[in-house]
């Protein structure tokens, strides 16, 4: 993401430069955004493994408490079960939050990448859309 943060101002500043200089920057920007979006999948996999491990730890701890307890009074079992269920629910909510955040970031990145791709396409077709006689840069060229 830090690469992206550095790249965006560069792309914006480059907006004032000649199209030839902008094109590679836009291309890099688009590629970085797509890569970032793909990296989110990797992050998602890592988070899923961490969540699965947390669930296993909870289950093991619940079972260990049951095994280590000499007498299983009904109230104690109910307390343990409530705590275990609450912890599982908290994990599930956290998982859903992470998924939502990841989806939002992916959407934003892909939309930004699409916008850059369109900008590149426009630049490529600039000659057709912007006749040479309207191009103010020719004034500088004449000098």
């Amino acid at each position: 993401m830090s690469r992206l943060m550095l790249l965006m101002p560069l792309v914006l500043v480059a907006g004032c430069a000649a199209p030839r200089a902008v094109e590679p920057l836009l291309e890099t920007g688009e590629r970085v955004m797509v890569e970032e979006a793909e990296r989110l999948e990797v992050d998602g996999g890592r988070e899923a493994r961490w969540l699965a491990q947390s669930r296993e730890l909870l289950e093991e701890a619940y079972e260990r408490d049951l095994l280590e307890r000499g007498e299983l009074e009904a109230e104690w079992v109910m307390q343990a079960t409530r705590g275990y269920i609450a912890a599982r629910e908290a994990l599930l909510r956290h998982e859903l939050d992470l998924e939502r955040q990841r989806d939002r970031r992916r959407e934003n990145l892909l939309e930004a990448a699409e916008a850059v791709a369109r900008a590149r396409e426009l630049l490529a077709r600039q000659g057709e859309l912007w006749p040479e006689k309207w191009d103010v840069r020719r004034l500088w060229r004449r000098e």
Partner: protein
Amino acid sequence: MSGTGSTRALRDLVEARLEQSWSQWAQAHPNLAEAIDRMRLTELAVNRLRDDPVYREALEQAAVDEAQLAAAAKVLQRVQAIVDALLN
């Protein structure tokens, strides 16, 4: 309750109530207490409270009535009830 300040206040309130119940609970369930992330448990309690109709009604009353103290007491009772439901 809305806004960051209120959210923080609610979280602090829930955290304090959870803390009161926690040490006793953790003594009875040491392994599970070690495996539970209390920050997420606090978040869960805050979310349950926000969805709780009695809690919401108490907050609405506090906003329109002069009997704010009674409503506040009701809110505290509700926080305790939610925390108890998580552990006890």
